[in-house]
Every structure is written in structure tokens, then in C-alpha cells.
């Protein structure tokens, strides 16, 4: 196996591991963490509430997308 193919397989593994069939979760988590960081850096005191609430909304949206259509 060449180094290129090894690198490509390594990249594919991580892509599948982190993104897989739920890209909304990977992108959503990144956005939520960056938003919490921004609020904490600006000393806005809603950081502690924002993270869990935003993550619950993200989970609900992702579950809703994955449900079987009636």
C-alpha cells in the first residue's frame, strides 16, 4: 500500500467516524462550541445554559431527520 493510499484511508476513516451519515451533528457541535466560546470570552453569563439547550435542540433536529416517515 502506498503512502497516498494509506493517507486517504486514514482520512476516510476519520471522516466516517466524525461525520458519517449525520453531518448535521458534526457541524452543529462545532457551531455550538464556537458560540459558547464567543459568549464566554465576551463575559456573557448565558454560556452555561446555552450549551445544553443548543445541544438538545441539535439532537432533536437530528432525530427528527432520521425518523421513519409515516
Amino acid at each position, binding site marked *: 500500500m502506498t503512502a497516498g493510499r494509506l493517507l486517504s484511508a486514514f482520512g476516510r476513516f476519520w471522516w466516517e467516524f466524525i461525520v458519517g451519515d449525520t453531518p448535521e451533528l458534526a457541524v452543529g457541535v462545532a457551531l455550538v462550541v464556537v458560540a*459558547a466560546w464567543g459568549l464566554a470570552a465576551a463575559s456573557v453569563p448565558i454560556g452555561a445554559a446555552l450549551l445544553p439547550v443548543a445541544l438538545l435542540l441539535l439532537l432533536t433536529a437530528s432525530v427528527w431527520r*432520521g425518523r421513519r416517515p409515516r
Partner: protein
Amino acid sequence: MTATLLVGLAVFGACAVEMVEALTIVLAAGLTRGWRSALEGSAVAVLVLAAVVAALGPTLIHLVPISVLRVVVGSLLLVLGLQWLRKAILRASGHKPKHDEDAIYQREVARLSGLPRPATGRDATGFVIAFKGVLLEGTEVVMIVLTLGLSSGRLEVAALGAAAAVLVVGVVGALVARQLSEVPENALKLGVGLMLVTFGTFWAGEGVGVSWPGADLFLLGLLALYAASTWVLVTYLGRQTFRPKAMA
């Protein structure tokens, strides 16, 4: 104390779930290709995984600042935990078929029985199938051991939790052999998903500078919040699945 207990439980549960999946493959390989090659393949894979934890764990602790580690690790735990939780909620509410270990076992046995076997010596197919099965399922466990262990500063607790799960599932699996479908895999996945999301929220938050009221005790509050929300989602989606159609 709270965090240590939760770390140990989370790693034990995660490792148990992945071990059940790996065991299905190892049992199929052992029964069709011979136990020697299947057990050797599994043992080599476990050694490789343990070596990765031993090599990466201390290195990452010394090279990467703890706040950076917590943001990266917390975010990884969140993605992984939310993926597990989503899958478990959809399965528990009937929107996704449950993982059927018996069906996977029968499929693997049928596939492996058809392949030619060497007349003497080690069976390379059995070795490789068992090795790959344990290595692939174990990679996720390594990620969880490293992320939970490093962020909490309790790598040894995480490693012990994983080792205990390997031992327990290995012994139980050897005793019940083909009744892996009896293991409440989805319930385990749901519980572990809840804990991963709880720790992910806590450490990603600490990493970006959020101060949690009550410090470590806030973990229990987060766990309760996520558990209650999961229950609401499973109940609501479950009703949606089984609601009878209106008469025309």
C-alpha cells in the same frame, strides 16, 4: 468522586457494547475456522489497541495544554455521544431496526463456512477476520478511553473500565455463546450515549471558559436533563410510530 464513577461506568458501558459486536465476529470465526486462529487474531488486536492507548495517552497529556485538550476532546465526545444517542432513540422508538446480533452471526457463519480451509496449521482467514473485527470495534473504545481518561485526568480509571468490560463480556460471551441477542445492547448504547454527551458538554464548556455552577456536581444535573429529554423523545416518537391510521 462523581466524575470518577461516571468515567468508569461510561467506559465500561461503551466497551461492553463494542465487545458484544466484536464477540459476534470472533464466535463466528472460531466456530467455522477454528478457535486457535480466532483467539490469536483477537489477542493480537487487543494488544495493538492497548499499545495505542499506552503510547498516545501520556504523550497527549504532556504535549497539549489541558484547555485545548478539553475543547477538542469534549467536541469529539459530543459528536460521538450524540451519534450513539440518536441511533438508540430511533431504535427504542421503533424508527430504526434494532441491531440483530443473531442475524449477523448467522450471516458471518454462512460466509466463512464457504471459504476454503488449509489442511494443516494456522487458518489465516480466521485470524484476519477476528483481528479486523476486534480492531475495528475496539478503535471506538480506544477513542472513548483516551478522550474520557485524558479530560478527567483519570486515564487509569478509563483503562480499568475498558479492561473490566473486555473480561466480563468475554466470560459471559463464552458461557452463553450464541445468545448475544439477549444482551440489552440498545439500552447500553442509550446509557453510554447519555454519559458521553454529559461529559462532552462539561469538558467542552470548561475548555471554552464556561464556569459550571456546583463544579463536578453539575455533571449529575446535565445527565438528568439529557435523560429526561431522551425519555420525552423516545415516548413521543414511539407514539408516532404505533398510532393507528385514521379511518377513511
